């Protein structure tokens, strides 16, 4: 099985539109949406959920008001400013609580509970292009990196069981915890970028990360015709950073129009973007 993670550094460059198209183009593919806190791939693949699982991760501190003596020890020890005291009444702000358990351990009257935190749900679904594992992080919930790891692991298991040829993973933007969880140990990474100063800067940062983890990296410049000079500069910089530049994708309103229809652009029409993405896929198949 070949595993490809599609990331971008900068958000909004077209990761999910490309992933959705690859799902339509690949034979026998398994999909995973690892952008768990702003997941969008389901809007193109319209999954029919087969299995729903709850995602418990870590714990959160909860003060029992009846047992709290108001000594303030928890507030003093908490390094995340998660203890709120109002008129001598102490409570924990769940959005700020890191779940470290220090207050629980050191509370003199042992007045703090530490229940497991329900942080979201993950799903195994059927789509018109194959199976898909995706998730929904709870509102204002923590631990997106762990949920990413679960989605990836489950998708790999289902893909192995189904003897899928491809595991296509839609990754998150950035370079932090969820990105690291998405790409660690991956077979290859495609970085979709755009010909802007921000796109270039963010691409080069994420390429440092893929190099750090020694993952073969490919890039594709989306909307390349917005700034052809910048596109060439980005492709040269990517080559210098050890990545292979593949097919460029031109600006094409069909990508938005396809999204409105709930389709990938290669299913929507044979316009310039669809043609370029088909070429991109063929080139990737050749390399992987």
């Amino acid at each position, binding site marked *: 099985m070949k595993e490809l993670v599609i990331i971008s550094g900068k*958000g909004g460059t077209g990761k999910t539109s490309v992933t959705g198209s690859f799902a339509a183009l690949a034979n026998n593919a398994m999909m995973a949406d690892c952008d768990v806190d702003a997941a969008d791939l389901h809007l193109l693949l319209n999954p029919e959920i087969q299995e729903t699982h709850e995602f418990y991760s870590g714990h959160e501190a909860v003060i029992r008001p009846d047992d709290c003596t108001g000594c303030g020890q928890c507030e003093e020890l908490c390094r995340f400013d998660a203890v709120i005291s109002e008129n001598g009444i102490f409570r924990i702000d769940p959005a700020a609580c890191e779940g470290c358990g220090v207050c629980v351990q050191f509370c003199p009257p042992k007045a703090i509970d530490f229940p497991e935190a329900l942080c979201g749900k993950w799903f195994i679904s059927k789509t018109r292009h194959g199976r898909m594992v995706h998730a929904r992080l709870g509102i204002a919930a923590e631990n997106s990196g762990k949920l990413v790891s679960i989605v990836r692991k489950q998708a790999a298991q289902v893909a192995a069981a189904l003897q899928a040829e491809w595991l296509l993973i839609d990754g998150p933007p950035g370079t932090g915890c969820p990105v690291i969880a998405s790409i660690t140990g991956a077979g290859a990474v495609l970085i979709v970028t755009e010909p802007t100063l921000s796109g270039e800067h963010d691409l080069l940062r994420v390429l440092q990360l893929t190099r750090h983890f020694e993952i073969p990296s490919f890039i594709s410049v989306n909307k390349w015709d917005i700034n052809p000079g910048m596109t060439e500069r980005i492709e040269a910089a990517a080559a210098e950073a050890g990545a292979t530049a593949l097919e460029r994708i031109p600006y094409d309103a069909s990508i938005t129009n396809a*999204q409105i229809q709930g389709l990938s652009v290669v299913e929507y029409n044979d316009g310039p973007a669809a043609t370029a993405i088909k070429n991109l896929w063929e080139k990737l198949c050749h390399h992987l």
Partner: protein
Amino acid sequence: MKIVIASGKGGTGKTTVSVALAQAFDGPVCLIDADVEEPNSAFFMKPIIESKRDVTVPVPQIDSEKCTACGVCSSLCVFNAIAVAGQSALVFPELCHSCGGCVRICPQNAITEQPSGIGEITRGQAAHITTLEGRLNIGSAMAPPLIRAVKKAAPEGMPVLIDAPPGTSCPMITAVTGADFVVLVTEPTPFGLNDLVLAVETVRKLGLPCGVIINRSDSGDDRVVRYCEEEKIRVLLQIPESRKIAEAYSRGDSLLTAKPELIHAFRKLLEEIR
């Protein structure tokens, strides 16, 4: 006054709007780039750099002479950042959340904390705007502590605009916490709407007031506008799609350089928020 510019979906124009709001501000203002994984606002601000400093978090250091390998620290650590191996405890600093529990619980007083770098903060000045940028080290997963640090670096008493990271998870929540108002930038597409709904639910759960800016407003459909009407969320501004703006952005020119007339709309918007 603390206004945070956030989005849910990436690439909708948070930085574009943050920079325009800072430039339209009538007086000294601090613009904080809290998108520490991919900070971009400096391209458009071009500030004169005044200072840089490293940001560190405390991580445990074990004195192997004192450590008896009793394992109390590793059983307290919920992040698996300390394990007992052989005669001493072993620290994995990249997993450490710097809660300080191990230092306090060690019966032998064998643990002290030493600083470990996670990123840097750059302070600069561009006309009336004081800029602060947080930049996470590559390979570091600890965005929230750096976001907290860059927010704390704002000059006392100065109004603050914060360019938040995308998403709705820990980094975004850390950036929006304590805001007086959250401006959510979206685009009128199914992806934009899906992620806007998540962002609205998040800021509402945190009890923060918000309004919406629709960028590239004529590019998709009307579902975002309808959602805002149904949810009674103020649409603060709509910015039509424009090749001129996109090209200016690609070069690092700000929105108000490409479309100077928009300054009035941003000034009005700031008055409305205040």
